[in-house]
Every structure is written in C-alpha cells, then in structure tokens.
C-alpha cells in the first residue's frame, strides 16, 4: 500500500467556502463602518453609562404605579395568550399541508407569515390607532403575534403526525371533523400545551414592552419615568420586570415538565 494519502487531502478547505468567509468578513467590516463606531464615542458613552448606573442606586420601589402596571401587563399577557392560541388552532389546521389542498394551506400560511412578520410592538402601534390607548390595544397586538407564532409551530407539528392513526379513524367511517378531533388533535395536544406555555412566556415579555407605544402595561410607566430622568424609579421598574420575566420562564418550564 502506497502512503500517498496525507492529512491535507481530507481537510483541504474548498474555494467556495473560503469565498463565502471572505465575503462575510468584507460585509462585517462594511456593516461595522455604518454603525459610526469611534473610540472617542465609546469612551464618552462609558462615562455616561457609569453616571447612569450611579443614578440607578438606590432603586425606588415606593411609587404607587409599579404594581398596577405589572398587573396590567399580566392581564394583557394572559388574555392575549388565550385569544391567540384559540385562534391559532383553526389557522394551523388550515395551513397544514397534509390535511388541506394546496390552495387552502397557502392562504393559511399567508396569514401566519403576515402575523409573524411584524414585531408585536409595531402591531401595537396600529392597534393603538384602531382601538385607542390602553390595555385593549396591547391584547389585540399580542393576540395577532401569538396567532403567527403558535400557528406556525402547530402547523409544523400537525405536518409531522403519523398518517396511520388518521387512516384508522377514517376506516371507521368518521367524518372530516371526526378525523380532526380523534385522529389529529390527540397527536399534537401535548406539544400544543408546550407551545401555549412558551407563548404565554413570550407574551409576558412583550406585554412589558407594548406600553412604550401606549398599549398598556408597565412599559408606559417605564418610558415616562425614563423621559423624566427619574432613574432610581427606572431601576425599580426594570428589577420588577426582570423578576416577572424570570418567574414566567420558571413557570413555563414547570408546565412543560408536567405535560411531557
């Protein structure tokens, strides 16, 4: 046996890959240049940041509008998760390519893509215009976002189900609704509950933000405190938001473990 095989033959990088990496580096340099980064700016920024952090201490929890804001965020998160996931079920059933003809599933996918493309806060801006300031706009905005997200995940879950059970249900002479209720839903219900828990967690995070555009919740309180330069109050609100989000994340994990 001739020993002509060397290490390089196996691990030689391809020209195409090198070109992609080179292109990536050029892009990064270009994109970094557009950010307007300069040493002097960073230095000054860090100075401001230090002053800022000093303004945060001690955090102020005493103002009375923290608790109502937090509770309103919770209300927005719960209600939008309920409406969003309920609406997502029919949308997902319509979008699943293994259940519906192509034309129908495309229209479902269009709805999902549309709902998913816009950040909840952008939807909230439009919702505030449509139904005025307050929690209702937040609920509508997060509901639309939830339809997009849960709809997509659920549609994918439905596309992965086993055909055998559907065939078995169909062989008993079940109607279309019968197939959906006894053949499709039981196969995805546990994953669906996981998605609901995940989406509730995501809605909780976003419900703390929609207030920035006037759609209710703690975000409005935070934004106005920020504009008043009331930094110790800002610190108090941010700590409360972090605590709320952490609790949400833990609860989501608990729910997922229960329904595994």
């Amino acid at each position, binding site marked *: 046996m001739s020993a002509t095989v060397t290490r390089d033959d196996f691990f030689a990088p391809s020209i195409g890959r090198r070109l992609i990496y080179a292109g990536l580096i050029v892009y990064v340099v270009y994109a970094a240049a557009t950010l307007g980064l300069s040493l002097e*700016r960073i230095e000054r920024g860090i100075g401001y*940041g230090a002053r800022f952090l000093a303004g945060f201490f001690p955090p102020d929890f005493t103002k009375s509008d923290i608790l109502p804001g937090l509770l*309103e965020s919770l209300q927005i998160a719960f209600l939008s998760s309920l409406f969003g996931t309920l609406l997502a079920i029919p949308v997902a059933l319509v979008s699943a390519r293994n259940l519906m003809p192509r034309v129908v599933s495309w229209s479902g996918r269009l709805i999902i893509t549309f709902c998913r493309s816009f950040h909840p806060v952008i939807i909230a801006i439009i919702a505030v215009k449509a139904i*005025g300031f307050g929690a209702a706009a937040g609920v509508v905005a997060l509901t639309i976002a939830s339809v997009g997200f849960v709809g997509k995940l659920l549609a994918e879950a439905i596309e992965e189900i086993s055909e055998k059970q559907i065939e078995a249900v169909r062989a008993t002479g079940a109607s279309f609704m019968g197939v959906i209720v006894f053949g499709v839903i039981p196969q995805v219900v546990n994953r669906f509950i996981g998605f609901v828990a995940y989406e509730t967690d995501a809605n909780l995070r976003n419900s703390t933000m929609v207030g920035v555009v006037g759609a209710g919740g703690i975000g409005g309180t935070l934004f106005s405190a920020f504009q008043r330069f009331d930094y110790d109050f800002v610190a108090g609100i941010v700590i409360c938001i972090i605590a709320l989000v952490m609790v949400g994340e833990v609860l989501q994990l608990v729910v997922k473990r229960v329904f595994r």
Partner: protein
Amino acid sequence: MSLVATTEGARRWVRFTPAERMARFAVYLAGVAAIVWSARTIEIIPEFLLDAPEQVADMGSRMWPIDWRHFWPEVWPALIETPHIAAMATLLGLAMGIPIGFLAARNATPVPWLNHLARFILVATRSIPTLIWALFFVAMFGPGPLAGALAIAFHSVGFIGKMFSEGVEEAARGPIEALTATGATPMQKIVMGYWPMALPTFWSVALFRWDINVRESAVLGLVGAGGIGVALNSAIDLIQWDRVALILLTIFVVVVVIEWLVTRIRERVI
C-alpha cells in the same frame, strides 16, 4: 403508565399516576384562574372599542394608495440599516454568548460556581427586553444604529448562551475522554473536543437568532436606536398613513426575504 388496584381487587392500567393527574389539574386550574382574573379586572374603555371599526376603516382609507414617493431618499437608507443592525448584533451576541455558553455548560466547565455565575448572566440579559436595553444604550451612545446593535446584542446573549450551552452539554463523552487520555488541557478539550461537536448547534442558533434579530431591529427606531423604526416613528408622528403603509410593506418584504434566506442557508449548512 402506572398500575392501580380497583376496589374489586382487579388490577387496572391507568395512563397517569395520581401525582401526575394532580399536577395537570393544578396547571389547568391555574390557567383558568389567571384568565378569569384577567378578564374581570382588565381596564378596557368600551367607547374606544365601539369606535374601533370606524377607526380601522379610516386608517385603511388613509393608508391607501401607498405613497411610493417617500421610498427615496427617506425609507431606503433606514431600511438598509435594519439588516446591518441585525447582523452586527447577531455577531456581537455570538461573540459574547458563546464563551459564556461554554462557561455555563457543566461538562465543559466543571466548576460549579462558574456555571452558576454564567447561568445568572444569561438569565439576567435575557430578562431585559430589547427596548429597555435600547433605552439605556441610546442614553449612553446617543441615538443611532450603534445603540440598536448593542441593545439587540445584549438581549441575544442570553438566548444564544442558553441554547449553545445545552448543545455543548449534549456532546458525546468519548472524544473528550480520548482527549483527556492524551493529556489535553481544559482549553484544548474545548477547542478540539466540545467546539467541533457543538458546531451544528452553533449554526442553528446563529441563524435562528439572526432571523429574530431582523424583526427586533425594526422596532428599535421607536426609541431612537436606528433602523426602519425611526422612519416608521416619524411617519406616525406626522400622521402620514400612506407613508406608514409603505414602511410596513417594506418591513414585511425584508422579513420574508431574510426568512427565506435563513431557510436556504439552514438547508445547506445543517
């Protein structure tokens, strides 16, 4: 599955143990209670809701026809800034998140206090919403894309680090033991052992986060942190709804294009 004895002495299979049933019931109960409480206490102004169809019709009529005249020179520069912000934020997030991810992985860093510290950093950064990070960085570095990129980067760290550390913890023990047998240092084990095994996770996390970051970078302008959101904000402040419609359409196109691109790259790389 668990086995229970019925009163007649016969044995019967049931799907869940009593503890599992109680846990499920508790989750259902908590969910219903949360919704009932929210529905009863949420403050909604009924006049605004009654007014909604009228308002939506009014908005729709003012959004159409879409005003293309603003595309150049106002919308395009802001639009092109948005994917840049997302890309820089993703890279910066990866640069910070991957080392912290290695520190958080119990097998790559067998030092409990370092694991806990890293996990705390990941949870804390993840818990602060992007817009709040953006408010801070705008106050630090002034309005502009730099603040936006930093805001998304710091928010992404938590997500990237968490997913990546889970990928590292799933790495096979065999190659690591082989490296240990050759006398590799902990750093060499990471570079030669864990990193190659976690590479698929790395690509999947990077692409997934890039996709999310494009969407996020579209809102940052609302607090002055650059991108298309700045144009959106000023169009809304000027109540020019035909211009708002144009901006929303361009955001939609960018997001769909990037998502298509991500799916393509994912098919090729993973």
